C-alpha cells in the first residue's frame, strides 16, 4: 500500500509533468518509424478537441453533441480561406479559431436556453445542420467533393511542417498550451463556477452564479478548442470532406473522454492516446471495434463513470484523507505538531480536477 501511495504521490508532483513533457519531446527519436509519430501527432490534434469538450461537458455538465461540427467548422474555415482566398496559413488559422468562437457563441446563446436532454438533442441537431450545410452548400464548401491541396502550416522558411516530425512538435506545442489553459480554467474560480453548474443549475444560481453567462463562456471556450483542433487537422491531413462533420467523431470524442475520465485534467489526453493506440494495434479488428466500444461505454458509465484518471483521483483522495486522519490521531496521542502540512495542498489539487 505504501509503495502504491508513493507512486500515486509521484504522479501528482511537478516532476511528473516534466517527465511527461520530456517523454513527448523525445518520442520522435524513440519511435520506430514516422508512422508512429504521425499517429501520435494526429492523436494530439484530437486531444485538443477533446479538451474543449471536457470544458463544456466535463466541467460544466452540458452534453454537447455538436462538438464534431465545430471541429469541422475550424477545418473548413482554414481550408476555404487558404485554398479559395489565398490567405496565409496562420492568418486563416486565427480566423478559424475566431469563427469557431463566434459561431459557438451564436449556437450557445440559442441552445443553452435549453436544459439537459433538450440541450443534448438540440446540439445533436445543430451538429447535423452543420454537416448538412457543409455537404450541400457547394459554392462555399465544395460540397461532397471536399477541399484538396490545403497548405501545411507555414514554417516561415525555418521549418517544413509538411514533414511529420516538425508537425508533431507543432501539435505538441498546441496541445500543451491547451492543457495548460484547461488546467488554469479548471483550477480557477471560473472552473469552480462551471462545476457548480454541473452539480445543479439551481444550486449554482442560488450561489449567485450567472448561469447563462457562464454556460455560454464554457461553450465558446469548447468550440474554440474544437475549431483550433480542426484547423490543425486540416493543415495536417491537407484534404477535408463533409465526413469530418459526421456525428461519429463526436461519439469518438465522448468515448475518449469517458475512458480517460470526464471532468479530470489528464483524462482527455489519457483517453485519446489510449484509444488511438488501441485502435491502431487492433487494426484488424476495425470492423468489430464498435462491438467492443459500445458495451465498453455502457460498462464505463455504469461502473466507472469517472474513467481511469477520475477513479485514480478519487482513490487517491480517499487515501490522503485516511492518511491525514491517522496522522491526526497520532499527533493527538503523541502531542506533536502534525507533519502533514505538505499533504493538504496536494490533496486539494487532486480534488480540483474533479
Amino acid at each position, binding site marked *: 500500500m505504501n509503495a502504491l501511495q508513493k507512486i500515486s504521490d509521484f504522479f501528482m508532483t511537478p516532476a511528473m509533468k516534466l517527465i511527461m513533457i520530456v517523454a513527448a519531446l523525445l518520442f520522435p527519436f524513440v519511435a520506430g*518509424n514516422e508512422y508512429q509519430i504521425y499517429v501520435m501527432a494526429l492523436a494530439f490534434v484530437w486531444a485538443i478537441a477533446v479538451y474543449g469538450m471536457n470544458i463544456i461537458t466535463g466541467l460544466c455538465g452540458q452534453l454537447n453533441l455538436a462538438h464534431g461540427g465545430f471541429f469541422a467548422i475550424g477545418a473548413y474555415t482554414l481550408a476555404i480561406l487558404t485554398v479559395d482566398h489565398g490567405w496565409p496559413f496562420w492568418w486563416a488559422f486565427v480566423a478559424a479559431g475566431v469563427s469557431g468562437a463566434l459561431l459557438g457563441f451564436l449556437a450557445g446563446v440559442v441552445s443553452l436556453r435549453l436544459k439537459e436532454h433538450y440541450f443534448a438533442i438540440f446540439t445533436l441537431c445543430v451538429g447535423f445542420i452543420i454537416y448538412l450545410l457543409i455537404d450541400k452548400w457547394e459554392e462555399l464548401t465544395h460540397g461532397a467533393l471536399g477541399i484538396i491541396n490545403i497548405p501545411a502550416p507555414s514554417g516561415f522558411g525555418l521549418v517544413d511542417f509538411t514533414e511529420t516530425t516538425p508537425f508533431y512538435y507543432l501539435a505538441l506545442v498546441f496541445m500543451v498550451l491547451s492543457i495548460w489553459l484547461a488546467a488554469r480554467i479548471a483550477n480557477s474560480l471560473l472552473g469552480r463556477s462551471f462545476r457548480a453548474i454541473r452539480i445543479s443549475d439551481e444550486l449554482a444560481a442560488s450561489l449567485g452564479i450567472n448561469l447563462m453567462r457562464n454556460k455560454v463562456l464554457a461553450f465558446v471556450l469548447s468550440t474554440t478548442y474544437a475549431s483550433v483542433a480542426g484547423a490543425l487537422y486540416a493543415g495536417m491531413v491537407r484534404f477535408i470532406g463533409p465526413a469530418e462533420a459526421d456525428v461519429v467523431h463526436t461519439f469518438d470524442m465522448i468515448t475518449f473522454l469517458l475512458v480517460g475520465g470526464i471532468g479530470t485534467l489528464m483524462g482527455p489526453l489519457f483517453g485519446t492516446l489510449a484509444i488511438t493506440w488501441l485502435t491502431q494495434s487492433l487494426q*484488424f479488428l476495425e470492423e468489430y471495434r464498435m462491438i467492443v466500444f459500445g458495451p465498453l461505454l455502457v460498462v464505463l458509465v455504469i461502473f466507472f463513470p469517472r474513467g481511469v484518471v477520475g477513479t485514480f483521483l478519487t482513490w487517491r483522495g480517499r487515501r490522503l484523507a485516511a492518511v491525514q486522519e491517522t496522522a491526526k490521531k497520532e499527533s493527538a496521542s503523541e502531542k506533536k505538531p502534525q507533519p502533514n502540512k505538505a499533504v493538504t495542498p496536494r490533496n486539494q489539487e487532486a480534488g480540483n480536477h474533479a
Partner: protein
Amino acid sequence: MSNGKNTLVKRFCRLACASAIALAASGVQAAETVTIGFTGPLSGGAALYGQNTLEGLQMAAREINNKGGFKVGDETYEINLVSLDDKYAPSQAAVNGKRLVQQYNAPVIFTPHSGGTFALQAFNQRDDFLVMSYTSVPTVTEKGNELTVRIPPTFTGYMKPFTKIAMAENGKKVAIANATHDYAKYWTKAFVPTWEAMGGTVVADNPMDYNKSADFYTGVSKVLAEKPDVLFIGGASEPTALVAKQARQLGFKGGFVIMDQAKMGEMSKIIGGYKMLEGSVGVVPLTMYEEQGAKDFVAKYHKQNDGKDPTTEVAYNYFAMHTVIQAMKEAGTVADSKAIRAAMGDALKNLAEEHNPYGVTEIDAKGGMMADPNIATVKKGGTVELQRISEVLGE
C-alpha cells in the same frame, strides 16, 4: 450484393487469416516478398465496396503466389498484400499510408476512394510510393502528382456517347435526379455541359441522397413535373433501381441516363428485368461482355466463387494488381516506385489478355488508364445492346 452469404464464422476465419498474414509479415521482412499495401473502407457504410476492391487484389495476388511468385532479375518474389481499414476517412487513409510505407516498406499502395487518394498524395512523392487509385474522378491525376495511377478510365468518356444515345432514343429534355455524394457531383458537373453542348436542355435539377433518403417519390415527382424526356439517375445500383422503379410508377415514359456507378445488370435483378429500363443507356456488368479477356476472367471467377458474378471493382483491381506486378518485371525493380510507374505503359502492352478483362491498352502521361469500354442501350422490349464507346461516336 445480397447473395453475399457471409456468415459470422466465415468472416472471423477470413479475419484471422488476414491478421495472421499481417502479423507474419510485420515480424520478418523476408527477402523474397514484396509488400503491396491497401487502405480502404473495410468497415462502416462503404465496407462492401472496399471489400470488393480488396477481393480483386487478393485474387490476383493469390494467383501469382500460387504459381510460385514472379521473377524480377534473378530474384523470385511473392506478394504480401497488407490491407488496412480506413472507414472511408481520408485522415485514416493517411495514417494507414504512413504505416504501410514505414512499417511494411510498401512501394505501392492501393486505395479505392478519391478522399484517401488526396490524403496520400500529400506525402507520396516525398515518401516515395506509388498510389494506385481506384476512382474515376479525374482530379486525382490532373494535379500533376507523378506517382499516382488512376485505375479505371475517367467517367468523362461516357458523356458524349450517353448523351448521343439518350437523345436519339428519347428526346432533348433531361432532368437530373442522381445521387448527392462526391462521385455523383463530379458526374453532374461533366454531364450537364456535354448535354447542353449537344443541343439539349436541362429542365430540372434535383439530386437526392440515395443512401439516406427516406423516400424518392417526393424528389422524383418534382423532376417529373417538368416533363423531361430523359431522367439522369445514378448512385449505388440498388437505390438507383428503386428510383427508376418509382419514376415508372409515377408515370415516366422516357429513358434513363444511368451513371456508371450503377450497373444495369444489378439493377435488373431488383426490378425484375430490363423492361422498366427501356430507352436507357448505362453500363453493364462484365459478365455481359463479349471480349475473350472478359470471358476468361468471368469463367475463372465463377469457378472460384461458386458461380457468383464478379463486380467491376473486383475485375479492375484484379487487373491493376497484375499490371503493377508486370510493371515491376518490366522495370526490373520491386522498390523503385518511379521506375515502376514509368514501366506501366510497357506492362499494359505485355499483359496477358485474361488478366485484362476490360481491355485497357494505354496509360496517359498523368497516370490515367485508358480503355474503350462497352456501354449498353436498352431497346424496346427490354433487349440490351452493347457497343464500344468508339463505335457509338464513330457512327
